[in-house]
């Protein structure tokens, strides 16, 4: 079944022209008559009670229409049902520098900015928590009163018998790993435009329409309903073009609700667009994480046990926190065959911007620790790192010890491909000093089997309408964010219906028009919305086939839909454009309006085929307008175990990735140069190879950014680098050649066998690079990013006799212990800026004094 007409073809995205001409509209490109600009006043304190807000002077400024505060929207919300701990604007206290205090709606941006300065806020600063391992011991000054010890959540899982597993091991390696904080930095800052209509029956404000840069229009609709206390039926959310998300727009971000609240009070449309600095404060990125990883193996390389203690510094609000911490344990399974697992996860609150979901979610930092530890074990056992991974492969179909169902599993082929293409066998061990090869593997879910808001509702539903004009309109809730979901939808519909791509029009992510899709996150869209599209198309196809069969006097099953034609299985259509399925072919003269084809039919020859349009008209004559609905919910057997937290991790299918990185390390400067990364990704089937390769390259590149450059630097809760100059994301010059290798395991349940291809590769890149660094210069870096400072420090730790630098003295990234602050004592020996007087570390904390050594 590999003779597809559009599946598997390299095509441009269906919305590419709008992007390359600038005609496509993103939220900030939209305007409405009478629109006001909203600007948000942010908290300058990491933790403080709000005593008083006085906006009188701001309201007196000409051009200011409204000022809203927490009192205007006190209802709590959150992306997780267990985490409704946020308000659109702070009500009684602020919990991070950047928290939202008030919003001005004014006629233009300069006026709004001036008005912010006129709002008087009286704060009572509170002691603040910055380090998660300190914060989780808190007895007082809690960030949320209902979270003792500032612990959002903790879990303790044991599968099998880890103690026995470690006792039986011939080789055990244990180490602490630290992954610093990174953020999505999507090129488009968040933006929301909210507008109320006047209701002709009540004369008052009625329906609300919100355009927003979001990955989750339906969750936004839901949270707006909660906060504004309006029925969802009166709220319309429309997603325009979105300039990247990566998880940063996969939950409701404060400005989205604030804009609606401001629009209601101002009684005019309000648009709020974040500055880049505000995007950093909104954050919801990958939490900085401490991983204590322990791995045991037998002499032959077979893993006997893994134990991981994971502490995530979650920031000030729950966000996706419970899910993030669960992912850090759950996906220890479903990649290798590990019989015994112990996992302890802690999601801790601190007074910093909240962390959420970011490409690969909680699996990424743990995968860095695991793959590094695996290489260490391989080294101790004198085994080739690629070989030790082969030794521990799963044998699917199977259920892992932590109740994850694995079906399609392309990892063996991925490993083989990158080993072959990189010249691993020939080159590794024979490269000059300073140059090395490293391998890493990773995997990810193709959507979570259990939805965030538990219900029996399908996770995706798609409607299709075909009318007499022969256009195929697909209504999908799936959110296109640049990953290609609109194109995927069009390809699947066109393939099933055998029509040209030009015929298919996508209407997406408009809550008034499209059925619910729960959102573009956890890489669920191709698998779930794709399956829903396939089913909707099949339903419509049935209606067309039965009508065409009657006209052609055959059985519906004998009909083939292809190249814009419907023909009997044995007949060959003679139409000239039969081979070109991307051009709109043919038309039916006159008859399309008149109705019956019988008259013209008598004079025309073959009854062995008809054009797509003739078939559609025939079906409409028989059935009336053609509509089809398809939906998808993951099967019960994929939904995982019933242990506490067992709902996160299960998926109908997993993607797999294996990568080899080729790096050089400059021992004078500490600079790491990545020459090339070979990345093989099992995506089930590549529906559009251009897009799949683009996603593989993009996710590897983002992993490389985290590995080498990206780091949010903190000082007493203040983000020191809230801009793209200092939060370094690789430019074209710093980005190496990445060779994407598509592996197709043809998943039994994915649409045409497809599964995810956008997140699974990111995690493998980081350890592939750290393992390559080890191969190059013999240092094992356990703190990421591998900046020149850290590489130099590790080299000095390796060569104790080498000259020491004061800058890095006392710092050993091969044995990290805790997070460091900008300007804090661990960077500089002895002297350094005084710690903030509200920092817990100063107030008699035992760790505080050693930090000043």
């Amino acid at each position: 079944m590999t003779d597809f007409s559009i599946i598997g073809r390299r095509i441009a995205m269906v919305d590419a022209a709008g992007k390359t001409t600038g005609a496509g509209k993103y939220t900030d490109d939209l305007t409405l008559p009478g629109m006001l600009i909203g600007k948000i006043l942010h908290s300058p304190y990491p933790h403080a009670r709000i005593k008083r807000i006085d906006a009188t002077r701001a309201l007196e400024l000409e051009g200011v229409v409204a000022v809203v505060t927490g009192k205007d929207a006190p209802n709590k919300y959150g992306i997780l049902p267990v985490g409704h701990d946020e308000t659109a604007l702070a009500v009684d206290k602020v919990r991070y520098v950047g928290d939202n205090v008030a919003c001005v709606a004014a006629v233009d941006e300069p006026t709004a900015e001036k008005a912010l300065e006129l709002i008087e806020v009286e704060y009572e600063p509170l002691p603040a928590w910055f380090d998660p391992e300190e914060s989780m011991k808190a007895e007082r000054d809690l960030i949320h009163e209902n979270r003792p010890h500032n612990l959002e959540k903790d879990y303790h899982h044991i599968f099998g018998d880890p103690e026995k597993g470690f006792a039986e091991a011939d080789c055990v390696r244990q180490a602490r790993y630290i992954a610093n904080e990174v953020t999505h930095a999507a090129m488009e800052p968040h933006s929301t435009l909210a507008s109320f209509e006047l209701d002709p029956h009540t004369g008052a404000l009625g329906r609300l329409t919100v355009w927003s840069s979001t990955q989750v229009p339906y969750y936004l609709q839901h949270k707006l309903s909660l906060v504004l206390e309006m029925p969802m039926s009166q709220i319309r959310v429309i997603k325009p073009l979105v300039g990247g998300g990566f998880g940063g727009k996969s939950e409701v971000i404060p400005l989205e609700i604030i804009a609606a609240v401001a629009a209601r009070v101002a009684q005019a449309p309000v648009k709020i667009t974040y500055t880049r600095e505000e995007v950093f404060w909104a954050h919801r990125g990958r939490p900085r994480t401490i991983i204590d990883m322990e791995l045991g193996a037998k002499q032959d390389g077979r893993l006997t046990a893994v134990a991981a203690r994971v502490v995530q510094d979650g920031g000030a609000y729950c966000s996706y926190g419970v899910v993030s911490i669960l992912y850090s344990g759950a996906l220890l399974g479903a990649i290798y065959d590990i019989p015994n697992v112990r996992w302890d996860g802690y999601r801790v609150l601190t007074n910093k911007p909240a962390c959420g979901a970011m490409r690969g979610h909680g699996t990424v930092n743990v995968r860095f620790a695991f793959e590094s530890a695996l290489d260490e074990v391989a080294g101790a056992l004198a085994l080739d790192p690629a070989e030790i991974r082969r030794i521990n492969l799963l044998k699917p179909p199977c259920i892992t010890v932590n109740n994850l169902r694995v079906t399609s599993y392309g990892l063996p082929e991925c490993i083989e491909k990158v080993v072959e293409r990189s010249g691993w066998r020939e080159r590794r061990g024979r490269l000059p000093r300073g140059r090395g090869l490293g391998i890493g593997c990773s995997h990810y879910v193709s959507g979570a089997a259990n939805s965030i808001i538990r219900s029996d509702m399908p996770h995706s539903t798609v409607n299709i309408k075909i009318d007499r004009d022969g256009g195929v309109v697909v209504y999908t809730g799936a959110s296109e964010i640049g990953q290609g979901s609109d194109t995927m939808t069009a390809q699947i519909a066109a393939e099933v219906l055998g029509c040209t791509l030009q015929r298919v029009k996508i209407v997406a992510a408009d809550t008034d028009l499209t059925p619910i899709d729960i959102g573009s996150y956890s890489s669920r869209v191709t698998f779930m919305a794709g399956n829903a599209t396939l089913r909707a198309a099949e339903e419509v196809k049935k209606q067309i086939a039965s009508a065409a069969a009657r006209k052609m006097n055959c059985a519906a099953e004998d009909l083939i839909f292809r190249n814009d034609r419907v023909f009997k299985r044995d007949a060959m259509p003679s139409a000239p454009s039969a081979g070109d399925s991307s051009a709109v072919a043919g038309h039916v003269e006159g008859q399309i309006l008149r109705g019956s084809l019988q008259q013209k039919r008598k004079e025309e020859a073959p009854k062995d085929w008809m054009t797509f349009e003739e078939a559609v008209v025939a079906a409409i004559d028989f059935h009336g307008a053609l509509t089809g609905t398809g939906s998808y919910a993951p099967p019960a057997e994929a939904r995982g175990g019933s242990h506490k937290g067992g709902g996160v991790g299960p998926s109908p299918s997993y993607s797999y990735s294996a990568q080899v990185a080729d790096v050089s390390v400059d021992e004078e400067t500490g600079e790491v140069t990545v020459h090339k990364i070979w990345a093989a990704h099992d995506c089930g089937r590549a529906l559009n190879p251009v897009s799949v390769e683009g996603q593989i390259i993009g996710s590897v590149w983002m992993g490389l950014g985290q590995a080498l450059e990206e780091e949010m630097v903190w000082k007493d809760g203040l983000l020191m680098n809230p801009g793209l100059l200092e939060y370094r994301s690789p430019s074209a010059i710093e980005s190496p050649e990445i060779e994407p290798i598509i592996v197709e395991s043809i998943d039994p349940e994915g649409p045409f066998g497809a599964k995810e291809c956008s997140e699974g590769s990111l995690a493998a890149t980081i350890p592939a690079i750290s393992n390559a660094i080890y191969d190059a210069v013999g240092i094992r870096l356990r703190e990421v990013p591998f900046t020149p400072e850290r590489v130099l420090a590790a080299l000095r730790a390796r060569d104790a006799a080498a000259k020491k630098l004061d800058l890095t003295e006392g710092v050993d990234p091969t044995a990290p212990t805790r997070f460091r602050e900008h300007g804090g004592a661990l960077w500089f020996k002895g002297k350094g800026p005084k710690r903030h007087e509200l920092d817990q570390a100063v107030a008699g904390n035992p760790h505080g004094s050693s930090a000043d050594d």
Partner: protein
Amino acid sequence: MKKELLELKVNGRRHELAIEPSKLLLDVLRQDLGLTGSKRGCDDSSCGACTVLVEGVPMMSCTLLAASCEGQEITTVEGVAEHGALAAIQKAYGDWGGAQCGYCTPGFMMTVKALLAANPDPTEDEIRHALSGNLCRCTGYTQMYQAVKGAIEAEQKGGKQEAGSRK
């Protein structure tokens, strides 16, 4: 600040505008002229999403006062397509995956246009360097290099597409 009259030449057309002298070119393009193709991606001229051509030279419009551009030929992404057809580089970015979310794409279109005007057959290294002032968060740039080379080939082979023809 009181507004002043200003004449700007954008994409071959003259516009008479009343704007504050302090207004940035990017905001005048987006707000006063409705040319929303050029984007704002940062606060400190570090991303290149606002890139336009001023007298053929790629400039960051978030760093230019509109008033300082009076009398100069400004080209935005809206002025790249010619004769009602996608320019070769626009079609190639679609075909080769050079654009994913598309937000950085207008900036890249201007940078590439200027590159190819100055250097019609650049090496991959030269392309990398030319593109290094534009940040992309989606693609990892690899498919952009393929798109640029693809555009050069397409122009050499078939010449421009006429509007109304479909191949």
